[in-house]
């Protein structure tokens, strides 16, 4: 399907259409922006840099019930299937991240909880125009208008949005929109290209990732890891806010006689992540944990799935309270390995 155009006066109607499913857009929660269901279309505001919490929180929620049970019982009550959702305003980097998470959750065993939600969700991207200070998507195979993982990409052209349907879901949406949309003209497509081009040029930070997986392997015992992790506080800010981090812990929670088994986000930066019942901890210090985080993204995942598990959104850099900067680490890796 060809590109469509949505003029801003029709935007309200478009939102009404999307609202037939459960619509998630970036909204303020506390002091920060994250994807949350919309109650009224007035809340929809697509002027933002990026959400603090990536949209993975909708598809892979921080807390998710796997099943419920009664004390002493044998029956598992599995929550009802996911409802149809639309995520509007997903940045291309975060959408790419979902394709990375997809690989993990459909690897050896399909994870029904994630995959069903993924299936039931339409992802509408919004091309990036003002990349953040630590964005480096272009270094890891993405870009401000990358389409991977999206069903539909919106580009803000000022007076309206250019819509690029990318999947059947995206096309169906455009069809359903009917008269709200018009066919995009050639200059609209050119304007969008220009927007994409300009955005890409604004990205300053970069890294050459060639050969990094091998370099990381070579540097396994390097003193570098101690140096880059000395300042680490061992918190989960980098991993919880990472759009590709997908580790979880399984917990049982009881309320009187009723209980549930649920999964909650976990972080490899936490001491207890690898703590064994015996008291032994194979990753005893922040050095091993930091090394694991970088290796997992830039080495192990590459080996297992053929892609770097980092989309260059810059959140881990922005949010690290002690300025542990993954690009800095990687450039040191490159330097050390020479």
């Amino acid at each position, binding site marked *: 399907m060809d590109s469509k155009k949505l003029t801003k006066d029709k935007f309200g109607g478009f939102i009404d259409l999307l609202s037939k499913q459960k619509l998630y857009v970036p909204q303020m929660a506390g002091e920060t922006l994250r994807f949350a269901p919309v109650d009224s279309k007035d809340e929809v505001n697509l002027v933002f840099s990026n959400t603090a919490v990536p949209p993975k929180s909708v598809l892979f929620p921080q*807390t998710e*019930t796997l099943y*419920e049970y009664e004390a002493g019982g044998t029956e598992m009550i599995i929550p009802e299937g996911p409802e149809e959702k639309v995520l509007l305003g997903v940045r291309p980097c975060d959408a790419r991240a979902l394709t990375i998470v997809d690989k993990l959750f459909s690897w050896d065993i399909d994870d029904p909880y994630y995959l069903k939600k993924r299936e039931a969700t339409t992802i509408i991207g919004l091309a990036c125009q003002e990349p953040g200070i630590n964005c480096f998507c272009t270094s890891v195979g993405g870009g401000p208008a990358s389409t991977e993982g999206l069903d539909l990409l919106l580009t803000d052209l000022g007076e309206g949005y250019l819509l690029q349907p990318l999947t059947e879901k995206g096309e169906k949406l455009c069809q359903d929109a009917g008269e709200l949309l018009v066919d995009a003209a050639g200059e609209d497509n050119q304007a969008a290209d220009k927007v994409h081009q300009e955005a890409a040029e604004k990205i300053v930070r970069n890294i050459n990732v060639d050969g990094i997986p091998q370099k990381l392997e070579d540097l396994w015992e390097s003193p570098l890891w101690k140096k880059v992790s000395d300042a680490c506080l061992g918190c989960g800010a980098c991993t919880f806010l990472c759009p590709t981090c997908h580790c979880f812990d399984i917990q049982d929670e009881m*309320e009187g006689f*009723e209980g*549930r088994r*649920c999964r909650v986000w976990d972080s490899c930066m936490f001491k207890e992540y690898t703590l064994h019942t015996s008291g032994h901890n194979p990753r005893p210090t922040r050095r091993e944990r930091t090394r694991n985080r970088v290796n997992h993204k830039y080495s192990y995942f590459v080996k297992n799935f053929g892609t770097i598990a980092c989309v260059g959104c810059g959140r881990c850099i922005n949010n690290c309270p002690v300025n542990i900067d993954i690009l800095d680490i990687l450039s040191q890796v490159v330097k050390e390995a020479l």
Partner: protein
Amino acid sequence: MSEQYDPNIVAFLCNWCSYAGADLAGTSRTHYPANINIIRVMCSGRVNPLFIINALQQGADGVLVSGCHPGDCHYMEGNFYARRRFGLMKELLEYVGVDPKRFNMSWVSASEGSKWKDVVEDVVEKAKEAGPFEQFRRNKINW
């Protein structure tokens, strides 16, 4: 607030004064509301401040800590530590918007069966005024 609302209060009583005072209230057949549920500890100084938050989280509408009068502590000082801890706990709860009526502390001696009754009636009344506690109650709605 529903008329049926019957507050549920968890009370931590020290073994030597308040628990004995509550026993005396029983022995003297004093009648008071059944909304109070007592957990016996040896000393009010044993009451971990996190118990208070935990009780609210686990469904209590009100919490009471009761110990010996100052100077009467069976262990000499336990109630002084309790007083310091819970004075501040009350401040903290109030500050985050928990109705201060929900958390109370009392001195009830082993001979104050009738004071125990008064305290119970008082805290039950206060909890009724505050209504059902929902703010950070652990709740299946969160599942």
